[in-house]
């Protein structure tokens, strides 16, 4: 193992993420909290008027409502730029190379430099291409990945007031609907390019997306069945309290054990009769425990199913047939150059970020701490946080600068999302590519039956176990 390179890569990730995360955090606070409270609260006092004028209130509201959308619009592309570098450096690590490490701090400016280079390149529209469609395709490819992520925003920030912009009761449905739009863009790009390779690439992506969206959606539907809701905020809310409550471990099938563990381990009042509580979660003693175990296996498999489907959905190796270099040159984006290509390229990473966020929210407890609550309660965290709080109190007290719950939620989301991203990179660094017919076989003959079987098993198993829903 190349310890020095691993150290450099993790240093890079920590440095960059804390810088961007901190900047976005401060900007959100400034625009969404500080300025509105300044102009509606402090200004009238200074101007010695009783109430702020309606115009001022309107401006304050506008700023508050624009903040979450702008934060997504800024954070996701910047983050995608970093993910490009992260992927290149990680792949270099897996393949005994160096990777880009010259520009900026350990190569941080590399993607920015590439983007600037692409920006200044000639924007070529091939002869015979449908220019309007050709221009529209990258836009349609890029936009849904950002707007599809809107309902996730509240879910990953602990339902903070500022970020409650799109708390739809059918959140996951909207997200999936938005996530299936980019395929249209790929077909458009393939058709409009007037290139045979692009056309084949576009058609392949359509076929692939149709086949792999089914297991993807089925796995999420099964999770919604366990959760009893389609609202992502509520799904995250249900999973709070440590790793045993997460959807990946049975969708709440283990939360009874989680609740009872402190009693069994004699950490709290031992005179409490646990059997009544146990019966509340697991009505039929032995069968329920077995079914809880079955549910855990099912949900772990569903998580794998989701990751496989997501890899196919966003065209990553081993499912990157629409842009298979060795066959189709570059597939649907063969004819693209300049900034249009850059948008395609960035959007791929944005999509990766979004599908990883969905996985985090649906399976990995969103912003939840992996350590069970009853362990966390026993750690001497309170004195530490009190000390920190008193140190930062001039900042926190009036201005709500840091809401600890939101901060930690965002922190854990980023850790989880980057773990999934790293896994996707590792897969890319290892596997060859499927052939198109094998891809279809794998999707229709393996994944979809598996998804259906899991769905049925979960429906039966959860009748004996009390899950989140």
């Amino acid at each position, binding site marked *: 193992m190349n310890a020095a390179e691993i150290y450099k890569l993790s240093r890079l990730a920590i440095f960059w993420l804390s810088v961007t995360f901190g900047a976005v955090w401060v900007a959100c606070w400034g625009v969404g909290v500080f300025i509105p409270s300044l102009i509606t609260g402090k200004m009238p006092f200074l101007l010695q008027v009783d109430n702020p004028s309606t115009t001022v209130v309107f401006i304050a509201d506008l700023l508050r409502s624009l903040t979450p959308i702008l934060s997504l619009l800024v954070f996701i592309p910047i983050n995608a730029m970093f993910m490009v570098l992260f992927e290149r450096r990680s*792949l270099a690590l*897996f*393949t*005994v*190379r160096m990777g880009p490490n010259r520009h900026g701090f350990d190569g941080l400016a590399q993607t920015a430099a590439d983007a600037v280079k692409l920006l200044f390149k000639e924007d070529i529209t091939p002869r015979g291409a449908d220019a309007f469609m050709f221009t529209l395709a990258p836009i349609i490819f890029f936009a849904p990945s950002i707007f599809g992520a809107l309902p996730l925003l509240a879910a990953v920030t602990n339902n903070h007031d500022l970020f409650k912009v799109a708390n739809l009761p059918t959140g996951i449905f909207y997200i999936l609907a938005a996530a299936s739009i980019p395929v249209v863009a790929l077909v458009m790009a393939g058709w409009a390019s007037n290139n*045979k*390779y692009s056309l*084949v690439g576009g058609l392949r992506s359509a076929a692939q997306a149709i086949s792999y969206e089914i297991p993807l959606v089925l796995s999420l539907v099964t999770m919604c069945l366990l959760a009893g809701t389609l609202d992502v905020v509520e799904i995250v809310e249900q999973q709070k309290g440590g790793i045993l409550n997460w959807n990946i471990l049975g969708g709440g099938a283990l939360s009874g054990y989680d609740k009872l563990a402190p009693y069994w381990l004699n950490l709290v009042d031992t005179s409490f009769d646990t059997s009544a509580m146990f019966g509340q979660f697991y009505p039929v003693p032995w069968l329920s425990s077995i079914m809880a175990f079955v549910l855990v296996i099912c949900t772990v498999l569903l998580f794998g199913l989701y990751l496989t489907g997501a890899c196919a959905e966003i065209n990553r*190796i*081993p499912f*990157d*047939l629409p842009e*298979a*270099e*060795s*066959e*189709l*040159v*570059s597939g649907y984006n063969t004819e693209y150059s300049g900034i249009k290509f850059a948008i395609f390229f960035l959007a791929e990473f944005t999509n990766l970020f979004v599908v990883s966020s969905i996985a985090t929210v649906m399976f990995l407890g969103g912003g939840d701490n992996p350590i069970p609550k009853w362990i966390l309660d026993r750690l001497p965290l309170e004195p530490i946080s009190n000390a920190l709080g008193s140190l930062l109190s001039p900042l926190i007290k009036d201005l709500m600068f840091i809401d600890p719950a939101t901060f930690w939620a965002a922190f854990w989301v980023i850790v989880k999302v980057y773990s999934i991203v790293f896994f996707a990179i590792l897969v*890319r*660094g*290892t*596997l*060859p*590519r*499927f*052939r*198109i*017919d*094998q891809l279809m076989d794998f999707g229709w003959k393996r994944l979809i039956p598996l998804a259906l079987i899991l769905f049925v098993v979960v429906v039966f198993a959860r009748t004996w176990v009390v899950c989140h829903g």
Partner: protein
Amino acid sequence: MSTEIKSTELKTDEMIINMGPQHPATHGVLRMLLTLDGEFVKHAEPVIGHLHRAQEWQGQNRTWFQYQALIDRVDYLSGMFTSWAMARSCEVLDECEVPERAEYLRVMVSEMNRISSHLLWLGTYLIDLGAMFGFPFYPFREREKLLDLFEEIAGQRMMFNYIRIGGVQRAPNDAWLKRLKAFTEEFEDRVDEYEAIVTENPIFLKRTKEIGILPLSLAKQYGVTGPSIRASGTDMDLRKTKPYSVYPKLEFDVHWLDKPEGGDTWDRYILRIREMRESNKIIKQCLDMLPTEGELSGKKQNAGLRVKAGEAFSSVESPRGILGCYVISDGKDKAIRFRWRNPSFCNLSVLSELLVGSPIADIMAIFGSVDVILPDVDR
């Protein structure tokens, strides 16, 4: 306006695609004219000549000494073998004795070259299969060590000009031999490493089994040689069937598969892997048997190099197959005629039969498996 539908039949056309010469996967400048029915190949025609450099004609316009520096470029991945083929036919013509030490050195560097060529093939073949960024670089790590060794002994990493008419260019020192020994000792483990990740990989098996089946009769018809024909049921290897140099004194196996109905791309892959192991064995033996003292060349290496009048053909077993050199000399400073028999050319021409009926995705899997070097095709 008539509402009548004229034809209910769906009309589909064949699509003609020019794959290459600027295609990222055609290993250089091959152009393939493909007629596709949907995703399947109906007709394939390799169009060659984009890299024609008149190598044979150049041989007639340069002195012997100049030309031997040039011919490494014919097959740039295995320059030792092109040099050796030329040197051997000139030695036959000249009736000059090659010192034993030089012969051992020739076998040693050639087998090193065979390994480095197969390593590059392994890496690029995996890229052809879409393992774009992960594994392919590991073979390159070992190849780099070999290239460093070549650089030290020949002064060049790829265009060696090491094997000369009559002998070799220079002798290795002890440090070099030690490094080579260290390499041979660890190399076996490295091959195990490649095999662990590739050979039984389910996606790799799916992509390579049962495609590009080359029957023995077809292979013979097209003159396919090397590992590609040994996968189809013959043990034709010049090192055994027509032994030359010191190969009879060395112990090694020629791996082949008894499959006259035809070997698939996976068979050709596994034969190359086994060949690397055998080459490693040969190098080990050469290291033990190499005489420490002795002549390096049976001829003076200077600009006045001459070859006696007459004509001769001789061939060697290169990583890609039988590499032959035909030469006519009139005893003057330049040759009358050079003619090369390049394995890549024959291996490439069989593609037009192999590709028919396979989907687009398999084109590169099959093309990569016959191991073609384009400058070797076009000369």
